[in-house]
């Protein structure tokens, strides 16, 4: 095994979001032990690891859904603190959970603006939650968000989400995250439940996110997808960093070995 590949390249792009020494325990279980992680703008950073490696915990720490016990956050080199989802959102960090959390009974535009509906001007004598929604502005915004991600199969932003395919739903969930002025988008297993054509559609959306200057963190079990979209691959194991590779410099076999056995092949490492 060639461990020189594990060194983080000096030519890696400057990090947009960087965390160092993240630790998190749940009772007696140490889920994360001093993990370092970074992602740059215009980059897809894959986060891989076996079950229980700490991927999802790290993702939730980044999104503020879980507060880390130790560790530092940096955004564009400046220290920041993220301990609630609101902190993360205000820094432009958005997460798309695996379950998407869309309202199937509402249409696409309503889902995209949910919780932040544009209101018609005037009507100030009414409390904010009783002022009329500007449906047209909502549709214009929805259409812009969908067009930015080039979701071509979606016929109308007035279609109910309940009638859409899995890939279209994933794309809408991503569009909702992006629409909220975000710079970092965290995607949790976005292709897990999808067929070939649907996966293709979602991967295209992920590439569009990268091309529009977002920092994308991509969790997946599917190495074929990862090798297609990711620029760098960060491998976690037992809650610790194994290494980060540039996708171009590595192979799926090497990643699988790193996920399952780590870099040292000594027998003492097997559990």
């Amino acid at each position, binding site marked *: 095994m060639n461990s020189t590949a594990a060194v983080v390249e000096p030519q890696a792009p400057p990090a947009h979001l960087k965390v160092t020494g993240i630790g998190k325990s749940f009772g007696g279980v140490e889920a994360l032990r001093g993990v370092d992680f970074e992602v740059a703008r215009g980059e897809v950073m894959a986060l891989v690891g076996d079950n229980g490696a700490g991927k999802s915990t790290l993702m939730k720490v980044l999104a503020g859904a879980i507060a880390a016990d130790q560790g530092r956050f940096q955004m564009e080199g400046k220290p920041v603190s993220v301990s609630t989802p609101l902190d993360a959102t205000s820094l432009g960090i958005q997460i798309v959970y695996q379950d998407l959390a869309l309202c199937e009974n509402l249409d696409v535009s*309503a889902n995209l603006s949910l*919780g932040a509906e544009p209101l018609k001007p005037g009507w100030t004598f009414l409390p904010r939650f*009783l002022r009329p929604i500007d449906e047209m502005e909502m549709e214009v915004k929805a259409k812009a968000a969908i067009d930015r991600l080039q979701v071509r199969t979606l016929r*109308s932003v007035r279609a109910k989400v*309940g*009638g859409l395919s899995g890939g279209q739903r994933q794309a809408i969930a991503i569009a909702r995250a992006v629409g909220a002025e975000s710079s970092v988008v965290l995607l949790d297993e976005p292709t897990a439940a999808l067929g070939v054509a649907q996966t293709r559609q979602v991967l295209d959306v992920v590439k569009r996110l990268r091309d529009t200057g977002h920092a994308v963190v991509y969790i997946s079990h599917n190495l074929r997808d990862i090798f297609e979209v990711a620029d760098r691959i960060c491998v976690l194991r037992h809650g610790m960093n194994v290494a980060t590779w540039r996708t171009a410099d590595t192979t799926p076999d090497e990643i699988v070995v790193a996920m399952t056995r780590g870099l040292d092949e000594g027998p003492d490492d097997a559990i």
Partner: protein
Amino acid sequence: MMPSDSTLSIGQRFGRLRETRFGAFVPVMLALIAIWIYFGIAEPAFLSPRNFYFLFMQSAVVGTLAVGITLVLLLGDIDLSAAATAGVCAAVLAVLIVMGVPGPLACLAAMATGIVLGSVQGWLVAYVGIPSFVVTLAGLLGFQGLMLKILGAQGAVNMRDPFVRSLTTVSLPPLLGWAVAILCIIVFAVIVLRRQSQRRQRGVEVDSALALWGQIGFFAGILLAVVMTLNSYKGVPLLVILLVGLTALLGWITTSTPFGRSLYAVGGNAESARRVGMNVNYIRIAAFGIVGLMAAIAGILGASRYASVSFNAFAGGPLLLEAIGAAVIGGTSLFGGRGSVWNAILGALVIGSLGNGLDLSGASAADKLMFSGAILLLAVAIDALSRAGSAQER
């Protein structure tokens, strides 16, 4: 991708129809027309203006309750105590008036009572976490007791206050009725056409001209027919205008404001609503509060119409089940997230027409109960089937 139009089965077409804006409206409308035609043939007196007048009056109390209950159904909750709440509010109204409080003031007190009773139940559901079924079942029992206590030993108080009575006895003069109808049609047409031109300006999808003028024509047709029918008896009752006005207000709130949108969002996916920062607990309490208010209004209207407040009219009678039935027949889903307050009015008319028609044809109480049960079952079955259908399309 959705299948193209030519390959759809009838079932899929029906499912698709249910997804559109008028999806639930059209089937109920057809059911109502079918019922009217059937009774019209079986019992010609059914289609007389006089009978329609009474049909509207009879359906108004059920309709008011059903419109309120629709709001909690949208959340995926249920309110079994609405009729009992109406009873308590009517009792408060009656007792206050007997004590000499002026009618309008007593009405406000009754409405405040309704809001408090509803909000407290909403608080128990939202913060204590008791299922709404249980909270409102307790409310149903408790409020019935409370009503008896307020009414005193006789269990009934007469209602002679002219203000309260006028709510259900006054009708508009025919000319005024026509004027109101035409004004409504003009306002409706202006709103629809203005929206269309704005949509075109901003380059978002526009409805087809057929749908546009169809909407306006349909609305105008129904309104003119109703006014013509009612005018050939006593004129348009004030009660009908009150009910339509209230429903329009709640319809606007549920479909066009962030609060209304959050009702649908919580009913569709509460977790999603929570994640985008909606306060699900406040929304629950507000919805139950509004049901309480609508129940109070139903109580006032009931007291006015029967000219008395009695235990049997609210608690012992089938008022609650008819109201929930009306909402569900109107196409509001018991699973939450789907429905409309306008359809609750149609549902109330369906239930009212059945009762009225069966009465006219001399059906026994037993037949009426079984018939109503069958209709309710049919409505819920359609709801469940269309839900299963849309789930398969994924």
